[in-house]
């Protein structure tokens, strides 16, 4: 959202995503040396201009023809121009008019743009249409053309030109404010305010406007830069404040005329504009970075060096798993960390498990417990800037952070379907073309892919195969899209399928179908299935084994029946107690407290704060996983002594 999108025209990605972190912006900005430099430069130019103009310092207009076109020296910091006038003083003296002109344009642009944008976004309808029409007109003609015409009509009047520039630049603010207003209008609190009887303008002022200020300020900074450049252009062409007041563009023009005698003159006038506009643009960028979380922000604040490759760190005792040659995937001491505020914070810590053929393993836990990250680590799709450490063996191959280590594995040995089917498919390609491309990638000949794609779709239970092959993802329902995603995942005949909350985003009725489908497919192909879910009902329905995670750790792992019959970790039991079941007799029991965020993980039992059975022993040291027999492991020092039979499941289907 800097000058390149040209505030004279539209902005793209008008509404930045992400939460606005407004508090302490000033402080955070001032911590960044780049931003401080920008602010310092702008302040220096502004203050310098005002002071020089007010006190007529430096005799910028006093000519001295004997010292014409001198290079920088002791008397003249930046040299002299054709009439022997001091360039440095002239730059500052003329700065005031230049900045004032740009400011006028931007103020008008913001005022007009905000007013129209608020009206268009809030009221909508005809007002919106008119605002759109105005906006389109404003961006159709190149600004310079219009301004030159205006200048010719109104005489050589730079202020009139700046007012018109303001009108032209308002177009981008209209769009910006309109988008912000529209999104704010859809917020529930605005509805509530309306119901409560607040009038439109008051709602706008108190609820909408604060959200709009941030993007407007950012855009405004860039707009100032643009206005400066436009003004310089006009000044270069001869349209500027009347002499003898210098203007930056006019000084460039003078420099150009003397180019053959003294080329140096081009430098100070040009650099003044470049540096000032640069400072304004950068300031806008910094503001945007601080107000919204951004990718570059994250990577900038990391002082880490190269990512550590997967290394063989010996797992602590009790967590070591025997390497099972038939295992589809084995994780040993898997840790996934993300940088935050300068350090690496783990979201998954010390996770070890193994999946074999025929297993249907559930990875259970509340949101934020790290189960998705664990699954992504298995297929090597942890998003940057995440770092994976620990030992990972997939389909007999040791894999690491780099995608290359997954060569030949993804799609053909291990596959993934994710939570939201509607966004999981490439919106620009038909289902058929993506399927066929995937099949070709797995070695099939082009001629055979069409038939196989149809087969796959049939396999996942899609009725009108040909129609779906020709469809785009946005034309499918949620359930259909998920089936397509499953078909895509199966296209390579994988041995292990990871399903990340495959039914969460679907209707209840569709959920059951998809689950049935998955179980069906698993039975037919015998592949391993890692099912990630927070829904114990799903776990009970189709899984053979369950791994319970809490705050980045495995807290319990067991086969399904023993787990549901006799959970051994307080968290597992609490989960079960809080799961609604149709015929349940007892009341639901929520778990009090909240899941700790990764930076707040304690160095002992992470569930202790919410556990009704916690003791001093629980809070003294990190707890390791212990085995209680028959493949049942639990991370609790009191596992043996606690009886956690969940009463709510008595009388319900198990």
């Amino acid at each position, binding site marked *: 959202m*800097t*000058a*390149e*999108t*040209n505030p004279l025209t*539209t902005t*793209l*990605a008008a509404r930045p995503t992400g939460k606005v972190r407004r508090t302490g912006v000033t402080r955070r900005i001032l911590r960044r040396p780049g931003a401080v430099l920008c602010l310092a430069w702008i302040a220096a130019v502004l203050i310098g201009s005002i002071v020089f103009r007010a006190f007529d310092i430096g005799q910028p207009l006093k000519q001295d023809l004997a010292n014409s076109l001198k290079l920088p020296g002791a008397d003249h910091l930046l040299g002299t121009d054709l009439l022997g006038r001091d360039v440095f003083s002239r730059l500052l003296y003329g700065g005031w008019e230049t900045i004032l002109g740009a400011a006028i344009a931007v103020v008008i642009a913001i005022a007009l743009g905000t007013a129209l944008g608020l009206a268009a976004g809030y009221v909508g309808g005809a007002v919106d249409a008119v605002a759109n*029409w105005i906006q389109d*007109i404003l961006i*159709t*003609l*190149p*600004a*310079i*053309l219009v301004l*030159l*015409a*205006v200048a*010719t*009509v109104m005489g050589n009047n730079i202020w009139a030109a700046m007012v018109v520039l303001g009108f032209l630049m308002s177009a981008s603010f209209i769009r910006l404010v309109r988008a912000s207003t529209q999104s704010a209008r859809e917020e529930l609190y605005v509805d509530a305010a309306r119901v409560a009887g607040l009038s439109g303008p008051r709602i706008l002022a108190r609820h909408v406007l604060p959200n709009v200020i941030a993007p407007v300020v950012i855009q405004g900074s860039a707009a100032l*830069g643009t206005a400066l450049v436009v003004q310089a*252009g006009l000044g*270069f062409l001869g349209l500027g404040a009347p002499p003898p007041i210098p203007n930056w563009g006019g000084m*460039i023009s003078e*420099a*150009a005329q003397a*180019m053959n005698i003294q080329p140096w003159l081009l430098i100070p006038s*040009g650099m003044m*504009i*470049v*540096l000032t*506009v*640069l400072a304004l*643009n950068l300031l806008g960028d910094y503001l945007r970075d601080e107000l919204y979380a951004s*990718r*570059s922000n994250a*990577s900038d604040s990391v002082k880490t060096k190269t990512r550590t490759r997967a290394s063989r760190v010996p797992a602590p005792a009790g967590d070591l798993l025997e390497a099972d040659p038939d295992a589809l995937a084995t994780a040993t001491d898997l840790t996934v960390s993300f940088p935050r505020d300068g350090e690496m914070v783990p979201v998954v810590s010390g996770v070890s498990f193994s999946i074999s053929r025929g297993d249907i393993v559930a990875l259970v836990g509340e949101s934020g417990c790290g189960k998705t990250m664990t699954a992504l680590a298995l*297929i090597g799709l942890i998003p940057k800037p995440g770092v994976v450490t620990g030992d990972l063996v997939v389909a007999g191959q040791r894999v690491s952070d780099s*995608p290359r280590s997954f060569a030949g594995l*993804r*799609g*053909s040995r291990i*596959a*993934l*379907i*994710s939570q939201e089917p509607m*966004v999981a498919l*490439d*919106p*620009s390609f038909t289902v058929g073309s*993506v399927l066929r*491309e*995937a099949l070709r*990638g797995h070695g099939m000949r082009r001629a055979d892919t069409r038939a196989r794609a149809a087969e796959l779709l049939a396999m996942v239970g899609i009725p009108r195969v040909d129609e779906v092959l020709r469809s*785009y993802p*946005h034309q499918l329902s949620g359930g259909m899209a998920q089936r397509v*995603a499953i078909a895509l*995942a199966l296209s*390579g005949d994988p041995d292990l399928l990871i399903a990340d909350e495959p039914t969460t985003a679907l209707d209840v009725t569709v959920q059951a179908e998809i689950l049935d489908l998955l179980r069906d497919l698993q039975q037919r192909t015998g592949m391993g299935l890692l099912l990630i879910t927070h829904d114990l009902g799903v776990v009970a329905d189709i899984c053979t084994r369950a791994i319970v995670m809490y705050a980045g750790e495995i807290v319990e792992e067991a086969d399904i029946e023993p787990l549901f019959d006799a959970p051994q970790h307080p968290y597992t039991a609490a989960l079960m107690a809080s799961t609604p079941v149709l015929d349940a007799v007892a009341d639901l029991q929520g778990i009090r407290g909240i899941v700790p965020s990764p930076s707040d993980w304690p160095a002992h039992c992470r569930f202790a704060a919410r556990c009704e059975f916690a003791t001093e022993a629980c809070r003294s040291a990190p707890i390791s996983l212990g085995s209680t027999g028959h493949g049942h492991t639990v991370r609790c020092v009191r596992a043996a002594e606690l009886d956690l039979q969940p009463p709510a499941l008595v009388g319900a289907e198990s």
Partner: protein
Amino acid sequence: MLVYALKRLAYSVPMLFGVSSLAFLLLNMLPSDIAQLKAGEDATPEIIAGIRESMGLNRPLHERYIEWLGGLLHGDLGTSWHNGQTVLSGILATAPVTLSIVVLSMLLAMILGIPIGVIAALRGGRLDRALVSSTVVALAIPNFWLGLMLVLAFSLTLQWLPATGYVPLEANPALWLRHLTLPVIAVASVSVSSIARQTRSAMIENLSRDYVRTLRASGMREVSVVYKHALRNAAVPILTTFGIQFVNLSGGSIIVEQVFAVPGIGQFTMTALARNDVPVVLGILVVTAVAVVVINLLVDLMNSAVNPKVRT
């Protein structure tokens, strides 16, 4: 798709009408010196009045407006007040020059900007920061000053490239390119940076989306994921930027043509303005508006071709 195009076209008509009318009003409010300019410095007031009359300047505004509008709808843009040639012929003579600059600039923006954006998005880290910084700096440099500096460096000092002039493409393609090198660089620098930034952010946004993860998970080659799928989806905002850049480039060309003495529409406009040649200025405004509308329409059509959600 045809319906969509027609709808967009229909929407543009009132907008063009608005722009043209506004321009007509604006320019005809000139305290017109044209009669005096034609009469010369020694002319008596009678001669000046006579010229005004013969040019039809004494007729009421609405009458002249209707006449002009009527002519417009027949493709007649009027006649220059200065030398009697038709506005259309003047524009046709100068348009190829400006178009050369604009088209070459857009090509450059595409050829440089898109790869830079993609590389920055993929690579991240220091290269990304370096590229982003370069674009930020490039956006702060006024194009006419850049042009002057280029002339200073490459024409006056190194004498590698000519500082002025234009050679038509059909006369000598190599010279055509040579003479346009510096002006195009000056004009295109902002566009290259804009396209690079837009590409970069669109690619970053797309590469972090779910469908990319799905495609990668299916084992698709990275080249295909990035260039066939992600870039395709990123095309929409990039294409839209192109439309905006066309307007910018047309405006930028006006000043840069002055610096390089290129006889394009920019120079034509400047001389017409200086001579208060209202019909010419009006004609240029209208033609420019039409060109922008056409380009935006093309961009919209391309967008709908690329984005299935729009056309299905």
